């Protein structure tokens, strides 16, 4: 079907507008409000809206500029023929005329019906419903202003049947499930939902779940019943084991008890044997002791006899030795006596000599003291003379004026200072000499005569007598006065000092000083001498010496008494000589005395030694005698009870026999004892007792176990574990069978559902792929070879458009506004192309400002797509207010001017 031309009268903005269209590309241009959209609206309504339509729909068509009913004529080609439909929208009186070129002309409802048939749409009914339906016709081919970016799915779905039918024709096979397919599929889905949830899980409350639960329940019951039953079986087994044990252990215990009894009896036997062994031991000990005693007594007697003989032999030489010792002692004593006499004589001589020597020494002292005393007295006289001389000099010194060296130097200084001051004064003073005068010359009030000179040192008035008074001022100014004053002071000081020293002149003072020096020197000498003598020491020395002398003299008189014949020496020298001589005599005497003493000591020691030796010898002899006596006594005591030698032999033999017999008895008893193994008996008793105890305990335990098992086994008839186990087994088997059966059924349903879904998907692909391929062909015109479209077809709904470009896939809704317009256009063109063969190979596709969001570049490339559609036989009617954008389209251009 193609629209060839249209004439629009009294239709809103159009008073009368006619446009001719070509069968391929048409571009209707014109500014806003130029009536482009109104034009295509008028064509659409003429094709689909009943001419008798009234109400608002009609009102909206009325022209506000021209009176008269809206009238539209459309020429079109369809079914290989040319048609013209004319409609006057005058409300209920609306007219419709359909003219077939070279054919009949139809009017009114006939025309409307035929038109719907030609356009292959359901005829619109009357009223508002019909009008609304009419407006929606061919929506897949008609892009109304502002709807360019709408999702084309709805339009595609509305054309589904036509599309499927077309595809079926092309593909040769069914592309749509039948009603039966749908019914069966739905029924299977329903059955599926009985068993499963949408996500394929077993549905709660479903038969499948129920049988599954029944099975688990039955299995649990079975497990429980089996456990109860196995408890029972265990108890039965335990009972049997315990009973067997009790029986066998009872026998063991009897054996043990017998063993214990036997061991205890052995123990008693051991106790008895032990007592016998002890008594046997005692008997043997006694016999052995008696035998031993006898043997010992015999041996002792023999030994004692030997001892007596030996002692007797020992005693003989001792007596001879004692006599010899006594003779030696006598000799020794004589020698000692002689030595003592000699010693006494030597000691006397020595004593005499010592007394004499000490007397002489006393004399030496006495005489020495006398000499010292004499010297002291002489020195004392000399000192007394010196003290007298010193007294004289002291008196002389006292008489001299008190001028000493210092004072004398002071006087000399004063005098020197004064003479220097006088010299200065004299140098400064002025002298006036009266050489010749006629008058009285007075100087300083003092009359000066001829030749007289006056010297002055202060301002002095000179009266020459002629009335002339001259004032003479000596040189030096004020220092003259100072010098004069100093001179005066010095003089006064000198005089004062002389007065103090009680001298008249310095010369005298010098003399006094010299005298005083001489006297003082003399005095110093004397004093030095006296200091040497130290008269006070002399005094004390005198006293001490006197005492010493007295003592020495007393010593002399005391010693003199001891010495028989002595001539006292007269001098100290004599005394000393005598002393030296005495010393020389004394020494040999001392030696003699010492030698005599040594001799005597030697003799004494010798004597003492001999005495001791003699005493020892005597003691030894006495001891030996005592020992002998003792041994003889012992021997007698020992031998007395032994009797005769024959007696002795008989007795010894008897004792030996007794010993042997008791030993044999003891040995036998001990052997018997050993054979009873007494050392292990106690352990055995313990062991048997322990084992018995343990065995009894085990029996008691076993009895307890038997009782426990018995109580588990004891059934009161309230339950039947064996029966319950059978029941549970049967139920578990039944439940398993039932579950398997239901499970298979459910699995079969699930299998069917999966298969149906898969087949549906295949069908869907069969339909959607060629449609998508067609869309892709158009899209590639704009977006290049990587672009591809896809569409889903589920349960009769076409939708879910996606575009893939450069490997990225986008849902339609996620595309940009411009791209949406282009994709939607591609879908419309593809659908139109598929549907076109039903309409004589062509269909018009109207784009009313359909690409308002597309940028200029895309506008350029989408012209290629539109061109392809035209080449594929579609009639493209493009409305735009900017025709220049589509200058490259090469379309038939129609321009609507602004009214």
């Amino acid at each position: 079907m193609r629209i060839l031309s249209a004439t629009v009268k009294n239709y809103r903005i159009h008073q009368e507008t006619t446009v001719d269209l070509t069968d391929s590309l048409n571009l209707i241009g014109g500014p806003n409000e130029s009536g482009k959209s109104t034009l295509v609206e008028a064509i659409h309504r003429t094709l689909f809206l009943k001419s008798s339509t009234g109400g608002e729909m009609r009102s909206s068509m009325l022209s506000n500029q021209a009176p008269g009913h809206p009238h539209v004529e459309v020429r079109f080609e369809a079914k290989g023929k040319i048609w013209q439909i004319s409609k006057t929208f005058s409300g209920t009186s609306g007219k419709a005329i359909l003219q077939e070129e070279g054919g009949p002309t139809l009017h009114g409802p006939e025309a409307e019906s035929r038109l719907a048939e030609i356009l292959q749409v359901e005829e619109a009914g009357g009223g508002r419903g019909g009008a609304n339906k009419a407006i929606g016709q061919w929506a897949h081919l008609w892009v109304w202003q502002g709807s360019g970016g709408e999702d084309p799915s709805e339009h595609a779905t509305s054309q589904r049947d036509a599309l499927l039918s077309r595809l079926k024709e092309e593909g040769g096979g069914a592309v749509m499930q039948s009603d039966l397919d749908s019914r069966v599929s739905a029924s299977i889905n329903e059955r599926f939902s009985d068993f499963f949830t949408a996500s394929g899980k077993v549905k709660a409350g479903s038969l499948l779940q129920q049988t599954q639960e029944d099975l688990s329940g039955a299995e649990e019951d079975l497990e429980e019943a089996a456990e109860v039953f196995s408890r029972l079986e265990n108890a039965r087994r335990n009972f049997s084991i315990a009973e067997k044990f009790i029986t066998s252990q009872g026998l063991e215990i009897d054996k043990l008890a017998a063993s214990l009894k036997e061991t205890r009896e052995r123990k008693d036997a051991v106790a008895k044997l032990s007592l016998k062994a002890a008594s046997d031991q005692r008997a043997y000990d006694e016999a052995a002791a008696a035998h031993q005693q006898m043997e010992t007594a015999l041996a002792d007697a023999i030994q004692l006899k030997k001892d007596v003989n030996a002692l007797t032999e020992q005693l003989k030489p001792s007596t001879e030795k004692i006599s010899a010792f006594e003779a030696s002692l006598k000799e020794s004593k004589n020698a000692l006596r002689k030595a003592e006499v000699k010693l006494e004589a030597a000691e006397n001589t020595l004593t005499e000599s010592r007394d004499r020597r000490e007397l002489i020494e006393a004399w030496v002292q006495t005489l020495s003291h006398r000499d010292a005393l004499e010297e002291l007295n002489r020195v004392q006289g000399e000192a007394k003379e010196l003290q007298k001389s010193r007294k004289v000099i002291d008196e002389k010194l006292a008489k001299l004026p008190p001028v000493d060296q210092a004072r004398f130097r002071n006087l000399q200084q004063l005098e020197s200072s004064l003479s220097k001051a006088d010299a200065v004064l004299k140098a400064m003073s002025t002298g006036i000499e009266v050489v010749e005068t006629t008058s009285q010359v007075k100087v300083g009030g003092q009359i000066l005569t001829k030749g007289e000179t006056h010297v002055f040192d202060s301002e002095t008035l000179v009266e020459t007598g002629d009335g002339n008074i001259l004032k003479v001022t000596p040189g030096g100014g004020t220092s003259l006065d100072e010098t004069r004053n100093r001179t005066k002071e010095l003089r006064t000081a000198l005089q004062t000092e002389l007065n103090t020293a009680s001298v008249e002149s310095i010369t005298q003072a010098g003399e006094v000083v010299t005298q005083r020096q001489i006297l003082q020197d003399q005095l110093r000498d004397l004093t030095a001498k006296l200091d040497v003598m130290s008269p006070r020491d002399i005094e004390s020395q005198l006293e001490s010496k006197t005492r010493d002398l007295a003592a020495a003299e007393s010593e002399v008189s005391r010693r003199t008494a001891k010495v028989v014949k002595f001539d006292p020496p007269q001098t100290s020298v004599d005394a000393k000589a005598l002393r030296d001589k005495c010393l020389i005599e004394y020494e040999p005497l001392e030696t003699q005395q010492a030698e005599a003493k040594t001799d005597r000591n030697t003799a004494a020691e010798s004597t003492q030694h001999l005495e001791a030796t003699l005493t020892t010898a005597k003691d030894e002899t006495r001891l030996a005698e005592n020992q002998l006596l003792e041994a003889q006594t012992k021997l007698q005591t020992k031998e007395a009870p032994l009797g005769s030698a024959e007696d002795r032999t008989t007795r010894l033999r008897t004792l030996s026999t007794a010993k042997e017999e008791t030993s044999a008895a003891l040995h036998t008893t001990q052997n018997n004892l050993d054979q009873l193994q007494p050392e292990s008996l106690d352990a055995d008793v313990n062991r048997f007792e322990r084992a018995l105890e343990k065995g009894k305990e085990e029996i008691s335990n076993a009895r307890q176990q038997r009782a426990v098992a018995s109580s588990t086994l004891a059934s009161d008839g309230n339950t039947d574990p064996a029966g319950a186990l059978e029941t549970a087994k049967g139920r578990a088997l039944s439940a398993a069978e039932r579950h398997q059966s239901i499970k298979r059924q459910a699995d079969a349903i699930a299998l069917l559902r999966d298969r149906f879904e898969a087949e549906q998907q295949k069908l869907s692909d069969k339909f959607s792929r060629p449609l998508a391929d067609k869309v892709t062909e158009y899209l590639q015109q704009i977006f290049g070879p990587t672009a591809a479209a896809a569409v889903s077809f589920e349960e009769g709904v076409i939708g879910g458009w996606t575009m893939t470009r450069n490997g990225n896939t986008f849902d339609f809704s996620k595309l940009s506004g411009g791209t949406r317009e282009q994709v939607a256009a591609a879908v419309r063109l593809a659908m139109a192309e598929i549907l076109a063969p039903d309409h004589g190979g062509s269909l018009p596709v109207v784009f009313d400002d359909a690409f308002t969001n597309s940028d200029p570049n895309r506008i350029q490339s989408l012209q290629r797509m539109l061109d392809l559609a035209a080449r594929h036989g579609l009639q493209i009617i493009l409305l735009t207010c900017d025709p220049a954008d589509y200058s490259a389209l090469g379309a038939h251009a129609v321009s609507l001017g602004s009214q």
Partner: protein
Amino acid sequence: MNFLHTADWQLGKPFARITDPDKAAKVRSERVSAIKRIGTVAKDKNADFILVAGDVFDSFTADKSTVSAACSAIGEIGIPVIAIPGNHDHGGPGCLWEQEFFQKERRSLAPNFHILLDHAPLELDTAVIFPCPLLRRHESVDPTEWLRSFDFGSLKNKDLPRIALAHGSVHGFDSEGNDDEDNALSSPNLIALDRLPPDEFDFIALGDWHGTKKINSHAWYAGTPEIDRFPKGENNDPGNILNIELTRGTTPTVEKITTAHLGWHVIEFDFASDEDVERLAEQLTDQIGNRAQEDLLQLTLRGSLGMKGSTRLGQLLETWRSRLLRLKEKDLVRTAPTPEEVAALTERAGDPLIANVATGLIHEAEGNSEEAEIARIALRELYGAINR
């Protein structure tokens, strides 16, 4: 004198594989009813006593209600009922025979009931009973061993017929191996009949084998009086008791009397085509008739069925499942669409989904794997969904 020989009452057997509790209870209670029927026979035959050769109870810990029901039924019989414990209700510590409740109930309800737990002869006025009780599930020694060395001279009356009462397997006769009906208490206790002193026993009353079986002219298994499992093998003949006429030193006269009430059926069926389902329906009706809640059936199915046949079989079994006390189904049938069904499923140009899914499943349904089994079920489901 004459007496009834029975065994293996298995009172209280739970029949746990019967999932409907009411049906299980019915099967259980039928075993008590069997005692009453035995009582009736005893009266008819004027029996001196009844010997039960073990397994009066199914469990050695039988519960109170089972004990009460048993004692009540035994008490009603009136004449002495003499039993030994078998491997199921063996004696020993904690066994139900020692249970205070049992003893109380026995005293008050069944004073005629004697359970023999010792290896000692019971000398009655009319016969001497030699009990060989099992005191544990599995005795390591032959329970009849004590009889080999018994001093028969010690018996008071040596002219009375002598009856040995034992429970276990004799040579050449194993216990009936385990299946899902059997329980863990099954255990072989071997009895060497040939080692018993010859000519000393006039009759050996055996229990354990649930079918009635003659071992020799003096030794019989009475079998269970009420069937408790699907019989195996051709010669298995359960559901009877024996009436024995006996005198010392002669061959006993043995009469078999059927006491079973519930039907235990075993059917094996092979499908060649879908039409065979109707054949099976006829066979079931022939064998079981119009009875309900009286029968148990072990049904083994083989061969293969198409979708339609399989669906029909399902409906048929559903019906019988409710009529029967138990349908033990062993389904070895290969369900595979017939060529027509295959075509109907796959040759559907207008229904591309169904056709493609069916094609895939038909391919996968071949083989014996679990996956193949599921694919077959899926096909049945699909078939059902299309033809609904």
